[in-house]
C-alpha cells in the first residue's frame, strides 16, 4: 500500500518527470492543432467548390432545368435525359455490381482455400481497383459493344461501371467479413450450423454495415465516371427518353430501356463546359450541383439502410 502511494507522489515532484510531462502534454496540443488543420483543408476545399458552383449555377436551377432536354439555347437547355440516364445506368450498375461483388467477396474470404490460385485471384482483384477507368471503357467497347453486341446502350454502360466498382465492393466485403469476430462463427458452428448457415445467418448480418460502406464508395465513384462511358459511345446530345420500364400492356414491365442510347450527368456537364459562352458554363455549374446532390442522396439512402441494419444487431 505504501509503495503504491509513494511512487506516483515521488515521481510527480521529480523535476525531470515534471518537465517531461509538460512536453508530453504540449505534443498533444500540437497534434490536435495539426489534426484540425488537416481536416479543415478538405472541408474548406469542398465548401469553396460548392459555393463556387452555387454562385454561377444556382440561378439556372429551376423546374424546367430538370424537365427540359438539352438545347442549342443555353437558357432552354435542361438535364432531363442526363439525370434519367444517370439513374438508369446506376440501376443496372448496382443490380449487377453489388450481388457479384458481395458474392465474390464472401467466397474469397469464407470459402476459397488458401493456395496459389486464390492468391493470384486476390492480387488481380486488388490490381483491378487501380486500373484507370478509361481502360475499362476500352474493354467494354471490345467485349460488350462489339463482342456481345449489346450496343452503345444503358445496359453496356451499367455493365461497364459494374466491372469498375466490382473490385471496390469485393475488397470492402472481404474486409467487413474479416472484421466479424471468429468467436461468432464458432458459436454457430458449435451448435451444428453448416458453413452457409454460419455465413448467411451470422457473418453477413454482422458484416453488412461494412459492406454497405463499400457500396456507397463504389456507387459514388460510378456516378461521376465519364471516360469509360465516352469510350463506349455515350451520346452527348440526346433529346428523347428511353422507353418506360413500366408499360400499360401485359407483362407491364419492359426492359427495352436498357438497350437505348443514353447520356449521363457528367457527360452533359463536360459537354456544356467545353462550349464557349458564359451561359453554357452556368448550365455546367448547375449540372455539377445536381450531380453532387444526387451523389449525396444516394449516399444518404445507403447510410440510412446501414443505420437500420446496425440497429438490428444487438452487440
Amino acid at each position, binding site marked *: 500500500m505504501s509503495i503504491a502511494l509513494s511512487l506516483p507522489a515521488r515521481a510527480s515532484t521529480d523535476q525531470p518527470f515534471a518537465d517531461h510531462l509538460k512536453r508530453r502534454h504540449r505534443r498533444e496540443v500540437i497534434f490536435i492543432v495539426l489534426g484540425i488543420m488537416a481536416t479543415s483543408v478538405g472541408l474548406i476545399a469542398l465548401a469553396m467548390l460548392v459555393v463556387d458552383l452555387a454562385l454561377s449555377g444556382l440561378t439556372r436551377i429551376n423546374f424546367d432545368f430538370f424537365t427540359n432536354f438539352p438545347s442549342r439555347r443555353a437558357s432552354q437547355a435542361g438535364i432531363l435525359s442526363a439525370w434519367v440516364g444517370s439513374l438508369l445506368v446506376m440501376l443496372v450498375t448496382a443490380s449487377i455490381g453489388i450481388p457479384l461483388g458481395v458474392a465474390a467477396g464472401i467466397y474469397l474470404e469464407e470459402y476459397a482455400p488458401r493456395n496459389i490460385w486464390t492468391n493470384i485471384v486476390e492480387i488481380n482483384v486488388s490490381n483491378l481497383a487501380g486500373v484507370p477507368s478509361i481502360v475499362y471503357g476500352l474493354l467494354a467497347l471490345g467485349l460488350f459493344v462489339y463482342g456481345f453486341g449489346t450496343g452503345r446502350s444503358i445496359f453496356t454502360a451499367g455493365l461497364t461501371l459494374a466491372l469498375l466498382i466490382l473490385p471496390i465492393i469485393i475488397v470492402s466485403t472481404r474486409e467487413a467479413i474479416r472484421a466479424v469476430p471468429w468467436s461468432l462463427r464458432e458459436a454457430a458452428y458449435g*451448435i451444428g450450423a453448416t458453413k452457409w448457415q454460419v455465413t448467411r445467418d451470422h457473418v453477413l448480418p454482422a458484416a453488412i454495415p461494412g459492406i454497405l460502406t463499400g457500396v456507397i464508395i463504389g456507387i459514388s465513384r460510378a456516378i461521376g465516371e465519364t471516360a469509360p462511358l465516352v469510350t463506349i459511345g455515350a451520346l452527348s446530345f440526346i433529346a428523347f427518353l428511353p422507353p418506360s420500364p413500366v408499360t400499360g400492356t401485359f407483362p407491364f414491365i419492359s426492359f427495352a430501356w436498357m438497350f437505348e442510347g443514353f447520356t449521363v450527368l457528367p457527360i452533359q456537364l463536360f459537354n456544356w463546359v467545353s462550349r464557349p459562352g458564359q451561359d453554357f458554363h452556368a448550365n455546367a455549374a448547375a449540372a455539377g450541383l445536381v450531380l453532387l446532390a444526387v451523389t449525396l442522396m444516394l449516399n444518404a439512402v445507403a447510410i440510412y439502410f446501414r443505420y437500420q441494419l446496425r440497429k438490428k444487431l444487438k452487440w
Partner: protein
Amino acid sequence: MNQISIDISRATHAGASDALHSADIKVFGRDVDVHYGTKQALFKVSVDIPANAVTAFIGPSGCGKSTFLRCINRMNDTIPTARVTGVVNIDGVNINDKSVDPVQLRARVGMVFQKPNPFPKSIYENIIYGPKIHGLARAKADFDAIVESSLRKAGLWEEVKDRLHDAGTGLSGGQQQRLCIARAIAVSPEVILMDEPCSALDPIATARIEELIDELRQNYTIIIVTHSMQQAARVSQKTAFFHLGTLVEEGPTTTIFTNPRDKRTQDYITGRFG
C-alpha cells in the same frame, strides 16, 4: 475397426478395477494426433470419458487440452491448417470417419466457449437458433417451450423471463455464459464440451456455473477444460492431466489430486509449475 474393438476391451478391463470406470464410457480417444500446419499440438492422446459424469482436462497453457476438446466435436475442421488423426469414438462410432457429418455430430456434442459468445440477437433468438436450423420444432408454442426449458436447465429463466426479446449481449458476463449453456442445451446434445467456461467470470458467477455443471451431469456427459485445479477438484469426477501435448495421467479426480502416479502431475497440482 480391429483396433477399436481392442481398445474397448481395454476400457472395460480398466473399469472392472475401478468404481468410476465401471460407468459406461461415452467417449474415448485413441492415439489422437493433431497438427496445426507443421506444428504438432497433440501426441498420441488416448483417454476415456465416462457417461453422465464431469471429466476435467487440466494442464498448463498450451498443453493441448483445448485442442483435444475440439477434436470431440470436430471443431478443428473449421481451422484450415489443422489435421487430426487417430480415433475419437462416441457411442461406438469413430467420429473422424468420413461418413460422419460434423453438422450432425455438433448437434449431439454441444460446446461452450471460453469467452461468452451469444449471437448479437435477442435471448429468445439465441436459444431457438439451434432447434430452428436442425428442424427440431416448427410451431411457435414448441419454440416457446424449448426456450423456457433450456433457460430453466441453465438456471437463467427466473432472471430473464420478462425480457426474452432483449439483446443476449446486454446480460452480465455470467448470465451470458449461462445463456450460451442454454443455447447448447436447446438442441438436446448428449455431450457438452466446456472450454474454460469460467475464465472470464467473477467468483460468484463462477460458483453459479459450477453448481449448474453439477446439476447438468445427471443428463449430460460433460467435459470441462479448466486452468483452475480447484475448479477441477470441485466439479469433476474424473480428471485428465495434459502436458506438452501428451496425456500424462487420467483417473478419478480424488486419485489425481491426492495420489498421482506421475511426478509431473504431482508437480503441477502442487503448484511447482504451470
